[in-house]
């Protein structure tokens, strides 16, 4: 009976899928995204790199949706065994699970770092982490339906507040800070993509979500909309951050976007400090990201070991906590972030493309035409 629980019996709508993809992508990167790109590019064209990075993510997203569509109602953890065989498939699944667990730990650490700096200075970081993991676990064990419903609730709030805060930031905006456009040439923009593509990591979740969709045919639409929202949001943030802070300063700041919010001042208004709103939004985004990664890790383990995933949700908690504690200082946290980004490129970029090619060559799975009359068969 237990095996049935792991079968994706829950179904989510196309809108919910798009919302889930957006919520997962929008995460810790909001705060730091301008700095790594600024350090590499040294020119104000960061926003162009952000757009191009997003477009590349959309292409990758479409590829991995096409891949998942060949295997209806099967998640990545299940169909990779069909494509490359049982043992290699399991190894690949375990690598992916490890990646998701590290990612969850990283999100927890980023959250506690920022809360430590801006909100709860004396509260031990461990307490923040444990509390957050507990709250996350509460949602994770609820399964995909409850997770996605919460995302639906949060995403409009996040987008609205972020746009609002960015609008307020316009008071210090100077167009000259964004000029010259393409001053260092187009090559520089391409170079910047290596930093900006990392902020879109998370869309590979479509390899699992497609299996849960009511109408898997519309998965391409969902992934385009799902990545499109973060592209829009990230482009606006990068334009305003650079327009307000200049590239030169964005390079020097630990949390450029937080500094931007710190800059906002409307004297006479009854609110002087807008940072609190920003932090609320940011914690929400971290929460959604954490929960989905945590869920994916648990689901993966559940499907690999053929057990109920909720057990693994609890089992992975201490590991996540330990990973969150591993970095010794802020620099190591950022380095871990980069490492995860590259792992993400491997899992979201290279693996699906290879699997897709192998699947086509070995004629595994079904082609798109077979959708209409298919039931569930394996």
């Amino acid at each position, binding site marked *: 009976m237990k095996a049935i629980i792991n079968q994706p019996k829950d179904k989510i709508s196309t809108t919910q899928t798009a919302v889930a993809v957006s919520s997962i992508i929008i995460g810790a990167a909001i705060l730091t995204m301008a700095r790594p790109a600024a350090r590499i590019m040294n020119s104000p064209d960061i926003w162009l790199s952000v757009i191009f990075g997003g477009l590349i993510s959309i292409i990758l997203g479409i590829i991995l949706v096409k891949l998942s569509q060949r295997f209806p109602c099967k998640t990545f953890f299940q169909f990779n065994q069909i494509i490359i065989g049982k043992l290699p498939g399991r190894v690949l699944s375990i690598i992916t699970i490890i990646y998701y667990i590290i990612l969850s730990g990283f999100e927890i650490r980023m959250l506690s770092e920022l809360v430590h700096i801006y909100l709860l200075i004396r*509260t031990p970081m461990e307490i923040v982490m*444990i509390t957050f993991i507990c709250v996350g676990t509460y949602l994770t064990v609820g399964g995909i339906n409850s997770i996605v419903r919460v995302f639906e609730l949060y995403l409009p709030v996040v987008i609205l507040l972020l746009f609002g805060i960015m609008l307020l930031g316009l008071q210090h905006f100077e167009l000259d800070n964004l000029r*010259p456009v393409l*001053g260092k040439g187009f090559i520089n923009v391409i170079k910047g993509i290596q930093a900006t593509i990392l902020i879109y990591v998370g869309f590979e979740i479509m390899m699992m979500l497609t299996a849960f969709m009511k109408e898997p045919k519309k998965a391409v639409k969902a992934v385009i909309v799902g990545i499109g929202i973060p592209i829009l949001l990230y482009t606006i943030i990068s334009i305003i951050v650079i327009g307000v802070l*200049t590239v030169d300063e964005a390079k020097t700041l630990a949390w450029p976007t937080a500094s931007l919010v710190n800059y906002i*001042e409307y004297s006479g208004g009854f609110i002087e*400090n807008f940072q609190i709103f920003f932090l609320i939004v940011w914690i929400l985004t971290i929460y959604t990201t954490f929960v989905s990664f945590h869920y994916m890790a648990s689901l993966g383990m559940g499907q690999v070991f053929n057990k109920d995933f909720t057990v693994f949700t609890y089992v992975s908690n201490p590991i996540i906590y330990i990973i969150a504690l591993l970095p010794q200082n802020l620099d190591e946290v950022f380095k871990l972030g980069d490492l995860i980004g590259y792992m993400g490129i491997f899992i979201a970029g290279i693996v699906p493309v290879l699997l897709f090619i192998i699947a086509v060559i070995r004629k595994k799975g079904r082609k798109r035409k077979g959708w209409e009359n298919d039931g569930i068969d394996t």
Partner: protein
Amino acid sequence: MMELTRKFLLLNILFIIITCILTGCWDRVELEELLIVVGLAFDCSEEADSIIITQQYVNPKGIGGGEKGGTTQKSPYANIIVKGCNVSDVLEKSKNMEGRRPNYEHLKLIIISEDAARAFNMYKLLNAILRHPETPRNTNILISEGKARSFFEITPNTEDVPVFKMLMISSNSKFKSRIPPTLKLGDISKSMAGGKSFTVQRLVMRDGIESPLDTMVTDTAPGKGDIYEINGAAVIRGDTYTLAGWLNEKETNGLNWITGKTESGVVEIKDKGTGQIIVYEAHKVKSKIIPIVSRDGKVPGNNIVPQEDISFTVECKIDGTIIEDWLMTANAFEEGFIEKVELSVQKEVFCIVEETLNKVQKELKTDIAGFGKQLNIKYPKVWEKVKDNWEEIFSDIPVNIKVETYVRDYGRQGSKK
């Protein structure tokens, strides 16, 4: 039965865990226990080897609706003066001197004395403030002639706390002539990170305070009143981050007209025949810095752009009003009068701008008006070649000035007769 004991045990464990977590709030902040610091003044010691920082904090009991008379009222503000070898040293020491915990979330103003700005690298000096998690980025910065802390000790007539008064003078700089735009901590951080020179508003004791009428000294309290003002600008070099020199009121106006970051500026001209004064006030300034690179920066056989190839044109268009004239025959209704005034104003503005540029380029050797930025925008490739010692190169670059001034208005009275 077994089930019940197990539940009981679990419940107990849960309670123990909960009590461990909920020991209380670590970050409890009681409003009454906070010392709200609103101003910092940086001075250096006689030998310029250590820093003296004056922190001004507000005493809420002294502000506003406190009952007057009867018992002595508390002063609405107080200063702590601490000496130390670096900024955080001072901030740490001050914790041992005050019972309440200093809080910098409402830091409004930082004054740096002339000596400190000359002796210390300002980027280093402000580093502790820029790192501090509490300090807002919109703290105003001023540079004072003379000791910075002395300005904190003058009780203003109109405000409760000295810092608030200075803040009000320094803000809305767009509509005040003779001062550069208000500079915030964030702006300073931007400029310094980019290695750009910048101007800071100058805080200065007024000279020529002769009579009580002038100082508005009230009864017996000396050092009270409006004995200081903010005018002119301090120029900070972008490469050494130290004070390079001052711009006086006229030059500051000139600079504002070049950058266009103002909507004000008063020009005083003299009528040709009679030598009588006519005063013109700008109310709209539009200016443009146009970089010109001849031969497009391409010199055959040479990779370095010769600085002769670069030049700039400053176009400045000012709309304004005649706000005062001492000329008895002046008649704005008459044809030709306005044109005459416009012409003389144009000449005067031209002179001021030229004088300013001369000082900025030749004497101070800084690029505070952002010429480099415009070159960067228009000729990014040329900029890459000259940016490393731009300010040195800039000092020899010719700048053409084009001034257009218009009299749009002459107030409520057009002529005297």
